[in-house]
C-alpha cells in the first residue's frame, strides 16, 4: 500500500507555484494526499475483509456440506426433535429403518408413536430426564415399523443449541435388530438342544423307569388276583377287600406319578418358563425323578441342603436337567468303581458369598480322567460306552444362560465333585 502511494507525492513536489500560494497549496495538497492515502488503505482493508468473508463462507459451505453428507449417509437414524419430541428433521436412515415411504411420514411425529406399549413409559422418562437435567443415557426400545415388523433400537439422545439459542433434542438411533434376532435364534436353539438332551437322558433312564413302573403294576395285579381268588372261594371279607381296593388305588396313583414325572421332564413348552423358586425344592423334585431309577436307590444319599429357602430365578426344567445329568454321571462313576458298599452320593447347597448359591454333587466313584479340565466340557467328548458326550456341554451352557458357572474337579480322596453356582434372586438378574 505504501509503495502504491509514493508516485502521487513525487508528482506534487515538481509543480511550480508562488510562495504564499505555494505554501497554502502545498499544505492543502499534503492534506489531500494524506486523506487519499487513508482512503486507499481503508479500501484495501475492506477488499481484504470481503475476500476473507468469502473464504470463510466457502469454508462454512464445505463444512456444512460435509456434515450434511454425514447426516444423510449415516446408517444410523438421526432425529432432530423439538422439546416436545416432535421430529423436525430426519436423515434417510430413519425412513429406511422404519420402512416408511419417505421422511414426510416421520416429520412432525414422535418416536414414542412407534414404540410398542411396554417401552413407552421408558421413552417418556428419558425425555423428562433430558429436559430436567440435560443428562441422558442410551436406552433400548422396540418399535413397530410402518410395515408392522418389530425392530430393536438403541436411542442415544443429546440436547443441542441452535444458532438462535433454541434447544433441540438430537437422537442417534442404532438398529440392532439383526443382533437381537440372532440372539433369539440362539436361545431357541439352546432350548431345543436342551429338550433333545432331556429326551436322550430320559432314554438312558427308560429301563429304570420301566422297572419302577413295574412295581405298582405288579402290586396292583397281585392285589386284584388275590381278590379274585378269594371271591371264587367265597371267602369275601368285605372289609379286607375294601382295604385292598384302597391299596390298589394308592398304587394306581403311584404309577401315574411316575409317568407324570417322565412326561414333565420331556415337555417342550417348559423351556420358556422362568420362575422364582427355592433351589431346595428343585433339588427335591429332581431326586423324586431320580428315585424312579434303580441304581439311584442302591447308593447312599446324603442331603446337605441349606436350611433356609434360597430363591433363584430359573427355568426349572433346565436346572432339573442339569441336576439329573450330574447325578447320572455320578452314578455311572460309582458303578464303574464297583464299591462294596454301593457308593455314596452327596448333594449339598451352600452360600459361597452373599449373591450366589452353590449346588454340589459329590460322589466317591472313579473320578475324572487325567487332563479332564479341557476335555469334559467339549462336545462329543465322552468316557462312557454309550454316552453321547453332550450332557456336560449342554449343562454348562444352561448354567451360563442362568449367569452361573459349572465346575468339575476331583476330590482329594476319591471320586469327583461337580458344582454349579446361580445368582440368588434379586442380586444379579438378567
Amino acid at each position, binding site marked *: 500500500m505504501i509503495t502504491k502511494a509514493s508516485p502521487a507525492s513525487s508528482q506534487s513536489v515538481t509543480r511550480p507555484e508562488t510562495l504564499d500560494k505555494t505554501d497554502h497549496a502545498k499544505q492543502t495538497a499534503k492534506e489531500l494526499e494524506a486523506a487519499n492515502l487513508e482512503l486507499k488503505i481503508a479500501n484495501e482493508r475492506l477488499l481484504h475483509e470481503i475476500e476473507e468473508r468469502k473464504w470463510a463462507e466457502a469454508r462454512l459451505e464445505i463444512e456444512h456440506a460435509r456434515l450434511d453428507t454425514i447426516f444423510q449417509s449415516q446408517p444410523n437414524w438421526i432425529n432432530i426433535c423439538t422439546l416436545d419430541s416432535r421430529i423436525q428433521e430426519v436423515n434417510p436412515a430413519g425412513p429406511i429403518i422404519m420402512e416408511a415411504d419417505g421422511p414426510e411420514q416421520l416429520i412432525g411425529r414422535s418416536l414414542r408413536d412407534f414404540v410398542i406399549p411396554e417401552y413407552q413409559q421408558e421413552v417418556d422418562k428419558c425425555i423428562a430426564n433430558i429436559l430436567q437435567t440435560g443428562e441422558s443415557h442410551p436406552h433400548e426400545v422396540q418399535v413397530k415399523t410402518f410395515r408392522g415388523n418389530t425392530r430393536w433400537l438403541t436411542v442415544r439422545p443429546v440436547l443441542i443449541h441452535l444458532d438462535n439459542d433454541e434447544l433441540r433434542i438430537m437422537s442417534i438411533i442404532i438398529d440392532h435388530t439383526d443382533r437381537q434376532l440372532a440372539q433369539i435364534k440362539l436361545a431357541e436353539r439352546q432350548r431345543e438342544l436342551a429338550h433333545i438332551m432331556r429326551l436322550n437322558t430320559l432314554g438312558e433312564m427308560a429301563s429304570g423307569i*420301566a422297572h419302577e413302573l413295574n412295581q405298582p*403294576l405288579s402290586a396292583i395285579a*397281585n392285589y386284584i388276583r388275590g*381278590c379274585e381268588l378269594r371271591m371264587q372261594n367265597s371267602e369275601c371279607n368285605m372289609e379286607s377287600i375294601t382295604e385292598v381296593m384302597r391299596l390298589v388305588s394308592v398304587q394306581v396313583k403311584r404309577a401315574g406319578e411316575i409317568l407324570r414325572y417322565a412326561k414333565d421332564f420331556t415337555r417342550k413348552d417348559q423351556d420358556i418358563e422362568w420362575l422364582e423358586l427355592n433351589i431346595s425344592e428343585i433339588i427335591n423334585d429332581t431326586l423324586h425323578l431320580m428315585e424312579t431309577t*434303580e441304581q439311584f436307590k442302591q447308593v447312599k444319599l446324603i442331603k446337605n441342603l441349606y436350611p433356609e429357602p434360597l430363591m433363584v430365578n430359573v427355568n426349572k426344567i433346565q436346572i432339573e436337567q442339569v441336576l439329573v445329568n450330574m447325578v447320572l454321571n455320578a452314578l455311572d462313576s460309582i458303578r464303574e468303581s464297583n464299591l462294596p458298599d454301593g457308593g455314596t452320593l452327596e448333594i449339598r447347597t451352600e452360600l459361597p458369598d452373599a449373591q450366589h448359591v452353590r449346588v454340589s454333587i459329590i460322589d466317591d466313584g472313579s473320578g475324572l480322567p487325567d487332563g479332564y479340565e479341557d476335555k469334559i466340557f467339549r462336545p462329543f467328548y465322552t468316557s462312557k460306552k454309550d454316552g453321547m458326550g453332550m450332557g456336560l456341554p449342554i449343562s454348562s451352557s444352561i448354567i451360563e444362560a442362568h449367569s452361573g458357572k459349572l465346575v468339575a474337579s476331583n476330590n482329594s480322596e476319591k471320586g469327583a465333585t461337580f458344582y454349579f453356582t446361580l445368582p440368588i434372586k434379586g442380586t444379579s438378574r438378567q
Partner: protein
Amino acid sequence: MNYPPTVFIVDDDPAVRDSLRWLLESMHLKVATFGSAEEFIKFYTMHMIGCLVLDVRMPGMSGLQLQQYLSKQKHSLPIIFITGHGDIPMAVRAMQAGAMYFLEKPFEDQVLLDYVHEALVLDKEYQQSRIRLTMIQARISNLTEREREVMDLVIGNHSNKEIAARLGVSIKTVEFHRSHMMEKMHATSLIELVNMTMEAAGDE
C-alpha cells in the same frame, strides 16, 4: 420244631411285598414278609420248611448275594427270583448259581402259584436231608477224639492193623474204639459210614 411250610417274601418295595402276601394268602399259604435280605437271615433257621420269593435288586444285600449266602450255609431253600424287566444277565447269573425259578415282572400269578407249590414240595424233601444232616453232625460231634481218629482212618480204607500201627496202640484197642464209633454213628456197614461222612463233609 415243627414249622408249617411258609413262603418267605423278601422285597424292599412294601407294596409289592404286601400284595404278594395278599395273593399267596388267598391260596391259603402261610406267608412271612421281609423288607431286606438281612432281616430274613436273622429270622431263618434251617429247620423251617418253605421257599423264598426274592427280589433280585435290593438296596443293601441283593437277591443274588442272599442266594450265595444261603448256598454257602448249605441252606437248600428253593428260591423263586422276581425281577424287573431287562434283567437277563442277572437271571443268567442266578440260574448259574442254582436258581430254579425266575419270574419277570409283571408275571402271571398262576405261574407264581405253581412255582410256589412246586418249591414247597421240593423243600419238604430237602428238609429230610437237612434233618439227616443235622443228625449225622450231632453224632460226629458226640465221638471222642480217639474215636474220631479211628473213623477218619477207617474211611481212608485202612485195616485195623494199619490203624493200630499208625496210632501206636494195640489192635484190640482199635477194635474197641471202632465198635464204639460205629455204634455212636448208627452205622451198620463201612459203606453206610462213608456215605454219612461224605454228606456231612459238604457242610464243613
